[in-house]
C-alpha cells in the first residue's frame, strides 16, 4: 500500500502543476501581445499582497467571496447546487438596509448591527427557501430556479433604489440614504477590513466542525453522496435539504449585510460585482472544504483586487486585465481536473508496482 504521504505529495504536485500550467498558458498569450508575463504576474502579486494596504484590500474583496463560497459549500454538502447565492446576498443587503433605514439613529451600534444581521439572515434564508421548497416538493431543479432568482433579486434592488427607498436628498440618483453611523460595522484601524471578515472566518471554522464532527454533518454527507442509502436509513431527507438551503441562504445574506454596512454604507446598484458567482467558483476550486475555501477566497480576492493595479502600473487596458482574469480561471479549473486524473493514474500505477 502506497503511503498516505506519498499520495498527498502526488496530489500536491498535481495542483502546483495545474496552476503553473494556467500561468504559462496565459503567459504565452501575454508574450504574443508584446508584454512581459513576469512583470505582469509580479504586478498582480504585489498589487494583491505587496504591502499592508494591498493585503487589506485583498481581505476586503475576499470577505464577501468567503461568505458566498461557504454558503455554496453548505448546500453542496447535501448535493444541492445553490447558484443563487448572488440573489441571497442581495436579499441580505435588502434586509439589513430595511433595518438600518427604519430604526432610530440613536440605537446602540451593537443592537443595530445585530438586528441588521438577523434581518439579513431571515431575508436571505427565505429567498433560498423558494428553490428549496420547489426542489423538495415539486422536484424542480434547484440550480435553475436559484440561478433565475438572482435576476429577481437584482431587479428588486433596482426597484427599491429607483423607487420607494430612493434617497430624497440626492436628485434622482439610484441609491438609498446613507446609513446612520451606528449601522456601520467596526473597521480595523486605518483600513477597510471589517468585522465581517472575522465573522466569515468563524463561520468557516464552525462549518468545518459541524460537517466533520457532528451527526448532522455525517448525515448531510450521506444524503449528499448517496441519497438512496439515506432514504434506506430513514434519514429525514426533506428536512435536511430545506435546513441546508436555509443555512446557505443565511450565510450568503451575511455577505450582503457586511457589504452595505461596512463598505457602501447604503444600498445601491452594483453592490456585488458577481461575488456570488465567484464564491461558487471558489467553493469548487476548494472542493467544498471550508478551511480551503478561506484560503482560496483570499487568493482570489487578491487576484481580483490586485488586477486593477495592472491598469495603473502596467497601463494595461481594462479589457486585457479582464481577459487575463478569465483565462487564468479557465485554465485553473480545466487543468486541475486534467492533472488530477493524471496524478490519480500515476498513484494507481505506483500502487500496483508496490503490490507486485
Amino acid at each position: 500500500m502506497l503511503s498516505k504521504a506519498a499520495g498527498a505529495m502526488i496530489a500536491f504536485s498535481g495542483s502546483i502543476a495545474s496552476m503553473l500550467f494556467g500561468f504559462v498558458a496565459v503567459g504565452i498569450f501575454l508574450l504574443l501581445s508584446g508584454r512581459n508575463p513576469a512583470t505582469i504576474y509580479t504586478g498582480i502579486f504585489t498589487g494583491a499582497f505587496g504591502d499592508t494596504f494591498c493585503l487589506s484590500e485583498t481581505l476586503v474583496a475576499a470577505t464577501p467571496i468567503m461568505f458566498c463560497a461557504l454558503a455554496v459549500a453548505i448546500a453542496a454538502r447535501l448535493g444541492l447546487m445553490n447558484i443563487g447565492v448572488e440573489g441571497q446576498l442581495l436579499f441580505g443587503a435588502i434586509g439589513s438596509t430595511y433595518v438600518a433605514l427604519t430604526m432610530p439613529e440613536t440605537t446602540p451600534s451593537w443592537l443595530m448591527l445585530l438586528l441588521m444581521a438577523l434581518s439579513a439572515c431571515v431575508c436571505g434564508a427565505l429567498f433560498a427557501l423558494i428553490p428549496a421548497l420547489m426542489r423538495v416538493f415539486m422536484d424542480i431543479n434547484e440550480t435553475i430556479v436559484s440561478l433565475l432568482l438572482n435576476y429577481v433579486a437584482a431587479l428588486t434592488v433596482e426597484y427599491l433604489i429607483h423607487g420607494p427607498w430612493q434617497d430624497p436628498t440626492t436628485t434622482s440618483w439610484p441609491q438609498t440614504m446613507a446609513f446612520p453611523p451606528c449601522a456601520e460595522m467596526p473597521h480595523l484601524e486605518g483600513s477597510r477590513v471589517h468585522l465581517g471578515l472575522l465573522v466569515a472566518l468563524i463561520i468557516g471554522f464552525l462549518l468545518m466542525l459541524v460537517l466533520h464532527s457532528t451527526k448532522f454533518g455525517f448525515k448531510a454527507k450521506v444524503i449528499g453522496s448517496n441519497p438512496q442509502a439515506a432514504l434506506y436509513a430513514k434519514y429525514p431527507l426533506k428536512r435536511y435539504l430545506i435546513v441546508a438551503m436555509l443555512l446557505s441562504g443565511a450565510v450568503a445574506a451575511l455577505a450582503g449585510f457586511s457589504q452595505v454596512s461596512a463598505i457602501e454604507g447604503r444600498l445601491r446598484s452594483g453592490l456585488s460585482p458577481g461575488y456570488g458567482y465567484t464564491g461558487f467558483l471558489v467553493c469548487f476550486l476548494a472542493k467544498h472544504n471550508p478551511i480551503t475555501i478561506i484560503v482560496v477566497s483570499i487568493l482570489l480576492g487578491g487576484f481580483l483586487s490586485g488586477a486593477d493595479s495592472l491598469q495603473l502600473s502596467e497601463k494595461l487596458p481594462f479589457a486585457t486585465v479582464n481577459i487575463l482574469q478569465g483565462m487564468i480561471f479557465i485554465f485553473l479549473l480545466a487543468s486541475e481536473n486534467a492533472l488530477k486524473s493524471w496524478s490519480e493514474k500515476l498513484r494507481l500505477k505506483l500502487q500496483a508496482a508496490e503490490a507486485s
Partner: protein
Amino acid sequence: MPHILFVFLVICFTVLPVYSANEQKTVKAGFLFVGPINDYGWNCAQNEGRLFVEKKLAGKIQTVAVENVPESAEAERVMERMIAQGAKIIFATSFGYLEPVLKVARRHPDVKFMQLSRFDKRPNLRTYFYLHYQGSYLAGVVAGRMSKKNKIGFVAAHPVPPLLQSINAFALGVRSVNAKATVKVVWTNKWVDPAVEAEAAKGLIDNGIDVLAFDQSAPVTIVKTAESNKTYVIGCYTDDCQFAPNYWLTGVSFDWGPYYARICQSVLDGTWQEGTDVCDIKTGNVKLSSFGKAVPEPLRKEVAAAKEKIANGSLVVFAGPLKDREGRERLSAGAKPNIKWLAGMNFFVPGVEGTLPKN
C-alpha cells in the same frame, strides 16, 4: 492536500518583497473613468483631456488612469491605490463618485480631489460643472428646424440634473424655432447599455420621430441605429459624424484638456483651492460638433450666431420667467440661473413628453 498548496502560495506572495521603484520628480494625477476609454463618448472625451495634460505638462505631470471603475465602494479602492502610488490629485469624472470621493478625501487631506457635477464642501475637494446644456440648446435649434414631422426623440441615461438640463435646454432650443415640435424622452437608467439604447431608439423611431437626440456615455449604438433607420441624429460628447455620414446633424462635444491642464498647473504652482468651476461654451470646453451634410448653410449661420450670443452672455438659455410643463414658475422674470439652481433641476419644460421619476 490542496490547501497546503494554497497556504504555501499565500506565504510566498506575502513574503515576496517586490517594491516598485519610487520616482518622485513629477506630480502624479489620477483619473477615474466610469466606462472604457474607447467608447467614442464620455470617457473617450475625458481621456483625451488626460492625454492633453500629459502632453502639455510633459515632465511635470504624470497621469495614471483606471477604466470601468464602478460608482461604488470599488472606486475607493482604486483611489486608495492611486494615492498609494503617489497620486496628489484625483479627477473623479463621473456623477456617482462623490460618495466614495468624500470617504477617501477624509482619509487623505494632503491629496486634492476634483469631482464632476456635484456639490459638497471639503477643504481638499473642488467640484466642476459642465454646461452641456448650452450646446444642447444650439443642437435643439438645429433639430427644431430640421424636423418635418415636429416629433423629436431623446434617449437619456439617468434622470439626474445634468441630463435634465440638457433635455430642457434642447427642448427650449427646439421650441425657439418650432413652437409645434415635441421632445419625447425615454430613460434607459444605464450610462452604457447598447441593447437597451438600441431598443429605446428603435421604439422612438417606430413612434414616428424624425430627429433623434440622446445623452448616453457611448454614442455609437444610437448614432448607427439612427443612420440605418434613416433618422436624423444629434450627437453627444464626441464628434461621431463618421458613424452617420448621411443623417448626422450636429452634436455637443467636449474639450476637457485645457481645463484639466489648468487645474494640474495650479497644483504645481501651489495655488489649487477648494471651490467650484464652470466649463461652458464661453470657456471653450463645451463645443458644437461639425455639421452634417444635411444641414443647410443658412441654418449653420443661424446656429453660429446663437452660439456667439450664448458665449457673450446676451442669450441665456434658462431665462426667467421659466415655467415647468405643469405650469409652475421655476424662475421668476428677470432671474438668471446659478449653479445651485441648475444642480437641483428636477422638472421638464413645456414641450417635453415622457415620465420624470419622482424625487
